[in-house]
Structure formats: C-alpha cells, structure tokens
C-alpha cells in the first residue's frame, strides 16, 4: 500500500485526467484516516483519567469518532494522546515511542502539563515544559484536565485537519499545529449537536448537489437544456 501510494502521484500526474484521480484518492484516503484514528494509550498522569478513561467509557463513548481502539503497542497506533506531565526521564521514551509509530502519525497534547509544563513549570527539577520540546504536536487541547467534550472538540479539530490538509502528493507535510480550545460558554449539549451535524453532513450525500459541484456540471446542464428544448 505504501509503495503504491508513494508511486501513484508521480505516475498519475502525467496521464491526462490523472490529477482528478489523485485528488479523489486523497479524499478517500483522508476520510478513512480521519475516521479510524487508533490512539496509543499514553496516559502519564491525572489527565489520563479524564481523557483516556472517561471518554472511552459508555457515557462519552469515544467510538463515535472511530477512535476507540486504544492500542498498547505503537506499531498499531496512529494517534498519540499525550495525557499528562512529561518528565525528563520520560522524554527519551516518548521520542522513541513516537518514532516507532507508523506514518502518518498524529499527536494530541491534552492538558496544560503536556502543553507547557502546567502547574509544575516553576522551580521544578524534573519537568519537560511541553511535549512539543520532544515531538511535534498537531492539536493542543487546553485544560487541567480538559473535560471530555473539550477533548472531543480537539479530536474533531484533528479530523478536520486531516480531511483538509493532507495529500499524497506531499506525504508527511502537515498543516500547522492548532490550539483547540473549547469556545467559552459552550456546553456539552452544544458539542454533541455540533458532532451530530458534522456527522450528518458527511454521511448524507445529496446526489443532485454532488453532481452540481463536479467540474463538468455546467456542460452537462447545458447539454440537457439543448436536448430538452428540441422536441
């Protein structure tokens, strides 16, 4: 698979109409990547209780996003949720685990500890001030700890990033990291509605609208008009 994807753009771009195939491939690949993020269970401190345990349980239910298959080996995971403080002794291990994950790999840093060192920033001999000193981070989710809905907001942000930002033309090139703070005053109900709307929009295809968006839609309309006007 990797080989085909690596070679595909170089071969296809030279064929007439090949770009459309690449773009369509991009769309399909991004959809499947975004909707089957397998997290690496990487809880190092109190955030893990909220972000890995509470969200995975039945009430919040992480599996709505296709991200419930928490793996305990890096080889099978493609999203690392850094939930908690990283200390100096842990830092080389985080780096190692990140390197072991297969491409494409994503990192969500949850909680002020993983973002900046949090409450342990000052006068502490052991802290790494932010996991981004060790590995690249895609989405930051602030909070101490973030509530489950804030984490879902971060996950949605990551999914949007993947769906919009990636192409097999440039593997490994990523959009800039994003701070995904839950907008002030937003409640769990509203997040749930937003998620439902998002899912609905993506999973329901209006055939007529989809046809309108295609590049040759205007020509088709013209052709239909010409032919229907002639008796």
């Amino acid at each position, binding site marked *: 698979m990797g080989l085909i994807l690596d070679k595909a753009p170089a071969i296809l771009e030279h064929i007439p109409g090949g770009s459309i195939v690449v773009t369509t491939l991009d769309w399909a690949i991004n959809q499947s990547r975004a909707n089957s993020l397998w997290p690496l269970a990487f809880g190092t401190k109190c955030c893990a209780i909220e972000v890995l345990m509470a969200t995975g349980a039945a009430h919040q239910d992480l599996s709505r996003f296709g991200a419930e298959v928490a793996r305990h080996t890096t080889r099978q995971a493609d999203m690392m949720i850094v939930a908690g403080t990283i200390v100096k*002794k842990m830092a080389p291990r985080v780096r190692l685990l990140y390197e072991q994950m297969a491409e494409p790999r994503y990192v969500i840093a949850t909680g002020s500890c993983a973002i900046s060192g949090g409450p342990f*920033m*000052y*006068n*502490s*001999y*052991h802290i790494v*001030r932010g996991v981004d000193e060790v590995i690249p981070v895609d989405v930051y989710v602030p909070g101490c700890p973030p509530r489950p809905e804030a984490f879902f907001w971060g996950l949605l942000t990551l999914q949007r990033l993947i769906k919009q930002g990636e192409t097999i033309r440039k593997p490994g090139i990523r959009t800039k990291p994003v701070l995904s703070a839950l907008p002030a005053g937003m409640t769990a109900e509203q997040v749930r509605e937003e998620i439902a709307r998002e899912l609905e929009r993506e999973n329901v295809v209006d055939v007529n609208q989809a046809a309108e968006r295609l590049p040759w839609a205007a020509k088709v309309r013209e052709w239909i008009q010409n032919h229907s006007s002639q008796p």
Partner: protein
Amino acid sequence: MGREGQGMDSESLIAAVIGLEAEAQARGASDRPAVRTPLGTLEPLLRQLRDRDALAFDMLLDHTAVDWPEEGRFEVMYRLFSLRHGHDLLVCADVPRDHPVVPTMCGIWPSAEFQEREVYDLFGIEYDQHPDLRRVFLEDDWQGHPLRKDYQDPDMLEDPRK
C-alpha cells in the same frame, strides 16, 4: 495475622520508647506519636522497637528526610507501624548537613533498602553499610540532589511573580 486489641495510645507509646532509650524525647508538632533521638542511639532503638513484644513494630511504612538548611541539619524520619497491635510511631533523628551519614536499617526491615536509596537519591544522605547504594529515580549521571533546598539546576525556572 490477627490484631490484638487497639495497641497503645500516644502517651504510653512515647513513655515506652523513653523507657528503652533515656536520651529520646517526645517531638512536638506532629499529628501522630513522635519521638526524637540522637543519631548514635537510632539503630539500637529501632531494633528494640521491632523486637519487643509489647511494641512489635514489624513494618517500616515510610522513610524520608527533611532539609533544614538554616539549622545546618537534615532530619531523617522513620514511620513505623505494627501489624500485630495496630499502632504507629514516628522516629526522628538529626544528621549534620556537612557530614550526612546514617546507619542503614536494611538489617532490621529489608524494605528499608529501596527507601534509603530514594533518600540518598533526592537528599544525598549516605547510608553506612548499605548493600547497594545507587540512585533509584533519577538517571545515574544526574548532578546533585534535588530535594535539598539549595539545589540549583540550569533548567530550573524561577517564578517571575515572586
């Protein structure tokens, strides 16, 4: 192992310890029965606390230290618990800061081995006769002992609000 009654209350515990070791005194400012004893008497006292039937402190719950730089001393603390009687006791001793050497308690409670390694790691107190005195939490090449109040680290940030 069944418990026999509720064990001793604070006053009788402290009185029993002072009966064993005349130089020990009650230590104020503590939330549990606590005594302070000179360093030289520490090991024989702890051994007797374990061996006497009426006291029977068969478990070393916790061993730690406190740094008092202004007074030039460390205070080593042993928190003892008796599974047989259900009473607990805190035993403290002062160690000079410029020569912090304490006899090891591994011969009395084997669990002391790792707890003493931890105190060595973070405070730099050395244990005479310890079988394996190495760092336990920090890397082997770490410089200094971070729980000392005067510890300095180039990576450490000072709080700018202070």
